């Protein structure tokens, strides 16, 4: 009898989504889908608002990565007032980057320690009562303490720059509102009130050592689980192709490392991307125009970024990146579970960059805002924790926003996540006479590797009302399972 398995909601991710797996009469998987069931509408209701409100309003898309939306919108609005990224004052650039590195650092720490580590530490099949962050805190208190303080460090950096940890305001068109004081920066450097930036670097190295050790013990799982060929997309520094999170050019490669998007300027993104829609999801499916819907989709986020870049500017992260690349003999890495490893290398990169910027006297300067000649359009592209984030605004002569296009990171990962879900459905669930909770969790494990931000800041702990409903081919419920 044909059946449909439903996981609703998917847990330990940001936002709400569900998975359906369609089985045939022999319990073989016919198809599987990752549905995003929320609708936001920001692109529409921001129309008519004055352009300077955009960075403040759009960050309400999310409680985890508001800084990324704030900065992507700010970069676009800079252009509306005639200021290109390179024209921003150095202090403003560095203060914005400091906040951005703090954001990526805290978001990655949140994801690894709170959301992903329970699966790695306890296993897919562990009791959900234990397989959560409270379980991690109980059984691995040293790890939990570090995770908490690393996230806190990133949040405190955001609070320093933007006034508060969530939905603060730092930018103004063409710059930033305020400088950093010497006393404020010493708080992060002197190792007195909170662990210092040096300690963050040290702990970041330790957590990379943890994942490398885990890889040694679980090589087959990390290398092969939901591994599949895909394109990879991210920003790189325009001068040398190195990892770039704040402002660079767009580069994409195919699964073999061949360039498919060759260092394209931000303003030209629209010439290269299309977005398709499917009736079963509110999330669009972006792809490269010249490759088409079937072949033009790309992964974004830590794994993609470490694939498309040619190096990292900070010494410790560069060393770890080289070791990471060596695992695949320098070739493109298509192992989905290696995304965790890549994310931790980025944590180290952010820690090193935060220290570098905090020690830079430019952030003490009052040279904060630039002005230029008014334009009607602006594009801001940034690497958010989860990948390439695109904001595009058009305004009229009365300063009102007339058009807004947002392609958020998780949108790029829509097709990759669906591919991953199908991989697990075909390789784990298909043909099984009985579907266990551990099997269902493996679908969530692979989704979590992408750290999807399905719109807002909802995190689930692991023990949750996961509902599995089995329907017959006529839509009648045959069996239900709740946990």
């Amino acid at each position, binding site marked *: 009898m044909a059946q449909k398995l439903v996981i609703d909601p998917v847990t330990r991710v940001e936002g709400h989504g569900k998975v359906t797996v369609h089985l045939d009469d022999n319990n073989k998987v016919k198809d599987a889908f990752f549905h995003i069931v929320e609708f936001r509408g920001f692109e529409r209701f921001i129309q008519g608002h004055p352009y300077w409100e955009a960075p403040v309003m759009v960050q309400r898309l999310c*409680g985890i990565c508001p800084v990324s939306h704030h900065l992507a919108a700010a970069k676009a609005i800079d252009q509306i007032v005639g200021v290109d990224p390179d024209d921003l004052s150095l202090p403003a650039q560095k203060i914005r980057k400091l906040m951005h590195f703090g954001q990526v650092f805290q978001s990655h720490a949140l994801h690894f320690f*709170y959301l992903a580590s329970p699966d790695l530490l306890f296993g897919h099949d562990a009791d959900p*009562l234990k397989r*959560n*962050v*409270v379980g991690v*805190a*109980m059984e691995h*208190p040293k790890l*939990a*303490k570090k995770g*908490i*303080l690393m*996230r*806190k460090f990133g*949040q*405190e950096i955001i609070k320093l720059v933007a006034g508060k940890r*969530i939905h603060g305001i730092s930018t103004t068109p063409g710059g930033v509102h305020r400088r950093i004081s010497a006393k*404020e920066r010493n*708080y992060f450097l002197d190792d007195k*009130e909170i662990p210092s930036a040096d300690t963050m670097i040290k702990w970041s190295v330790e957590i990379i050592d943890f994942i490398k050790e885990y890889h040694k013990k679980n090589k087959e799982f990390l290398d092969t689980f939901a591994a599949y060929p895909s394109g990879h997309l991210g920003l790189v520094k325009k001068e040398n192709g190195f990892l770039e999170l704040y402002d660079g050019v767009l580069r994409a490669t195919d699964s073999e490392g061949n360039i498919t998007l060759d260092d394209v300027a931000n303003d030209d993104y629209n010439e290269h991307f299309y977005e398709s829609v499917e009736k079963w999801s509110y999330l669009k499916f972006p792809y490269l125009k010249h490759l088409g819907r079937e072949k033009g989709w790309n992964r974004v986020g830590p794994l993609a970024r470490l694939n498309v870049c040619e190096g990292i500017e900070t010494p410790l992260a560069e060393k770890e990146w080289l070791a990471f690349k060596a695992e695949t003999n320098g070739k493109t890495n298509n192992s989905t579970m290696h995304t965790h490893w890549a994310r931790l290398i980025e944590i180290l990169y952010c820690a090193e960059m935060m220290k570098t910027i905090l020690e830079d006297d430019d952030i003490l300067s009052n040279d904060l805002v630039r002005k230029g000649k008014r334009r009607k359009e602006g594009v801001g592209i940034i690497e958010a924790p989860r990948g390439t984030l695109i904001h595009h605004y058009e305004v009229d002569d009365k300063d009102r926003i007339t058009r807004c296009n947002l392609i958020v990171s998780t949108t790029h990962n829509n097709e990759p996540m669906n591919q991953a879900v199908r991989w697990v459905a075909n390789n784990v669930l298909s043909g099984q006479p009985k579907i266990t909770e551990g099997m269902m969790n493996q679908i969530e494990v692979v989704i979590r590797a992408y750290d999807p931000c399905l719109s807002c800041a*909802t*995190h*689930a*702990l692991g*023990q*949750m*009302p996961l509902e599995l409903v089995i329907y017959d081919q006529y839509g009648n419920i045959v069996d239900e399972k709740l946990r």
Partner: protein
Amino acid sequence: MKNCDNKTILIGIGNCGREDDGLGWAFLDEIKSKLPSHFDVEYRYQLQIEDAELISHYDAVYFIDAHKDTLENGFNCEKCIPVKTHHFSSHELPPETILFLAESIYDKKPESLIIGISGESFNLNIGLTEFAQQNLKNAVSFFEKNQLHISSLQAQ
């Protein structure tokens, strides 16, 4: 930035954009200018795991939140006992779990009270109902007369 030498923290929980759900924050708004220097306040939409680390630096913690039930005098004040609870979402981390984590991870168990203040409407709107405002007044008055005094003595 918090001065960790301070001994007492008040954590207001809620959302002022949801009518009476803003009672926890409104309590802090009313009381914070009257607090001695060794008191800190924090506004929270929800408690998070890292709040266990925060409260581990204090000797006393007050969690102030809206209460859905109608309470005698409009509020209650109960001792918070550490409990290893388990909820569907980290949005639902209760004070008892935060206290439990502070004790488990940081070996710290600050004196802790939960002040619940009755609200009646939690829709999308800014501002407290008259019912909630009266209950807030009662709770603030009680705190000024009793808890503030007790905690001040504890801190000496």
